[in-house]
Structures are given as C-alpha cells and as structure tokens.
C-alpha cells in the first residue's frame, strides 16, 4: 500500500474566512487530498460521501461553519445530523466511523485547517487503508467523483 492515505475534503465555501487559509486549500493542498468545495455542508448529499468511499478514499473530512454561523441558517446542523447517521450506518457495513470526520471551523481561527488535516491524516494512517467498501479503483489524487 502507499504510505499516504487518500483523503477527501468536502469544504463549505464559507467556512474558511481567512483568505490565506482558503488560498492554501485551493492551491497548496497535498496531492493525496482531494478537495471538493460545496456551497454549504447542507448541500452534501450522502451520495457524495459514498462516491468518495467507493472510489477508495481512506478518510473523508467535511468542514463547515460553526452552529448559528451558517450562511444558510441551518445547513450545517442539518448536515451534521444526516452525515452523523450516514457515518454510523457505513460503520455498520464496514467503513469505520472514525474515517469520516465532521469539522466546524471558527471563522476567527487562522491556520486551523492545516492542523486539522494533519491530525486527520495521522489518524487515518493509523487506521490503515480502507478496503471494505472501495469498489472502484482509486484514481490518482483522490477517488471522489463528486
């Protein structure tokens, strides 16, 4: 197996307030992290996650805004409810729930996304590659086709 895990980051386009952070995500994200920007975490259909999982993502991170700071009022807490259940459910059939992480970013925190991604990558590396539900060969630079 390759040493670096395949990660997929679904990022709410509003959650990175600091332009430097957003720029880092847009341009300097390591190659093993596939990045998909969404208008709101509430827009994330569980099918996106499934596509990432089937495409060979070893971990999926979703980053959104803090509660009550959602651009669309309640998109982030609706997403939490649904994705929390979806990760529980995938765990039931073999995609460990620790591989899916939902993150709320405080608009004031600078540079936190890098730290969080690094921590997540360490966590996934410890878990090893996810093979159970990866049914499509992982494409280079992440498998998500969302």
């Amino acid at each position, binding site marked *: 197996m390759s040493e670096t895990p395949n990660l997929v980051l679904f990022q709410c386009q509003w959650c990175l307030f600091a332009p430097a952070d957003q720029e880092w995500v847009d341009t300097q994200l390591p190659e093993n992290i596939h990045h998909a920007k969404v208008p709101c975490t509430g827009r994330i259909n569980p099918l996106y996650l499934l*596509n990432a999982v089937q*495409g060979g993502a070893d971990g999926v991170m979703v980053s959104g805004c803090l509660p009550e700071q959602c651009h669309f009022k309640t998109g982030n807490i609706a997403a939490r409810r649904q994705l929390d259940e979806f990760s529980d459910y995938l765990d039931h059939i073999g995609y460990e729930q620790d591989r899916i992480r939902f993150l709320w970013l405080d608009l004031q925190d600078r540079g936190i996304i890098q730290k969080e991604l690094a921590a997540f990558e360490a966590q996934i590396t410890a878990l090893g590659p996810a093979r159970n539900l990866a049914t*499509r060969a992982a494409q280079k630079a992440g498998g998500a*086709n969302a």
Partner: protein
Amino acid sequence: MNLILKKDELNTLLTAWRQDYEVYAPQSLQKFTHFLPLQDGAEPAFNKAHNTRVPPKALFLPTSEALLKFTRFGGYEQVPTETAPRLIFGIRPCDAHAVTMLDTVFEQERYTDPHWQARREATVTIGLGCHEPCQTGFCTTVGSGPFNHAGLDAILTDLGEFYLVETLTEQGGRLFSQLDAASEMQAAQAYELQQAAQAGMPIAFETEGLKQKLDQNFVSPYWEEVSRSCLSCGVCTFLCPTCFCFDIVDETQRNERVRNWDSCMFRTYSLEASGHNPRPSRVERTRQRLSHKFTYWVDQINQIGCTGCGRCVRYCPVGLDIRAMLRKANQLPSEVAHA
C-alpha cells in the same frame, strides 16, 4: 443415438470435460442454485429446484457487460468477449429452447451481436429433461416441453440408476463417445417416462386464437384489470429466459459504455427526452410484455415467445400469474379473421 450414463460415472465425465471446456452446472450458492463453473470436487445440484433462479440466458447476455472502454483524448476501444470453450451441463429444456429464440434476435443477417454470437459459438449445451412436472411451469402449453430438444447438443433422461443420453448433434455425440449404447428396453423405458412427463403437464390456457384476441383487444379494459396490482418492478422480465431487452449506459465512473438488462416494466424504459412516454403506466407496460411474448414473437418467428419455465409466476412479488392473465384473455371477444 441413445447411450447409457451411469450416475456414478458422471463426475468422471465432468472432470474429463473440464480438460477442454469450462463446465457450467447448476450449483447451490448461498440460497439457491446458479449456473457456475464447476470446481474440483463440486457436484451439480439438481435436486433442490427444477430451474436455476436466474435463467441461463445470463451466460450469453450477462446482467451487465462492457461494450466499449473510453480511452484518453476522446478515443475508445472495444472490450473483447470471452470466447473460451464452455459446456453447460444440466440446462433445462425450457431454458435451452429460450436461447434458440434469442438467437433469432441477436443473430440476424443485417446485424449480428458479436458478443452474443461469440459466446454462443463457444458453448455446448447438454440438457436434463424434467421427469417430474413443475407446478408453475406450463411448457407444453406454449410449444415447448419437458424433453424438448431445441437448442441442445444432447439431452439426459433420469432413469434412477443411470441417465439415458440422447445425442442430438455431432458435437454432442463426441462428448459422449465413450459410453455404451442403450438397450431397446432402456430406450423404451425412457420414452415412456418422457411421454408421462409430457402428459403430466396440464394445459394452462388456450393458445389457439390467443394472438388474434390480444391483437384485436389492444385497447381494452382487460389490460387495466390484469395489471392493477402490478408494481412495475422487473422481476418477471429479469427472470424470464426469453426477455432480452437491455439498456446502453455510459458509466462515467468506470469510463465504459455498458449494457445492462432492462425491463419494459420500468418507467424509464420508453421515456423520451421530451418527457413523452408511450407507455406511461403499468397498464401499457403489462400490455407490452404480454403482447410481445404472445403476439409480436409470433409475427416475427411464428413461435410464442415464452417457454413456460414458470419463473415469473413463482417470484412475482404480488402473485400475478401469467397463466391466469391469459386464461382471462381467452375470454376476450374476438372477431373471426376474414383472411
């Protein structure tokens, strides 16, 4: 040519065949029987049910198969079809008969389907006649039968201790060339059993004049009546040995153009891009399914497009029975044809 195959010699023979062929035989997997390649030490499972759940048409027209693979920069290449020699052992006459009907669809003068043809030409089929009638089947009603020879290279009749083998083609003869000829008495015994099996199948509905009745009642409350409880799922068509419809889909996630089984019972089957659907409800779809089998096939090849395997009756989730539908169709009004 009638030969005798002792049951305890069957495995030796199957093993010998495996030198030259991939041998497919019904085998239990999980919950029911499938046609699967025979592995070392495995034995065919004939006892559990008469037919495999999924019809053996799937060996020629897989549920999904790739037609093209897209390459980079807008190119594409054909996905070649496996053509290693295969032997299907223990196919029931209804299913084998159905394959010959599908030949008329896939192997036509103007357009031949290379995938189907390659698989067909690489395959030998050895049938096993049904000496016990099956309850949901109605093969004799629709012009097939428990010992029908269509589409087979050889057919076996179970006579207890041994099988009586009738070789029907040269290729079938070669496969059994080691066997001893059957005595006249044994042949007579088999013949008697075959006749009894044939006679044991009741006639499920009247086929005489059925086509005219269905044709003339294309617009009729009959269709609403028989389709009212239909769910318009694809069970009857997917498990049908003579249904062949498929859908061609570009699978963007795999970069392939694939064909998948499709069913006339689905809403999307005939839905056009404009939103118009010639068969918008289960009434029209049921009409299409029955008319295709019992009138369009008759127009095309002068045979009813059903071999009476009974799968659609057994597995319909709402218990719809094609035999009962057609018995009702027998009651439809019909004008005497003028021609």
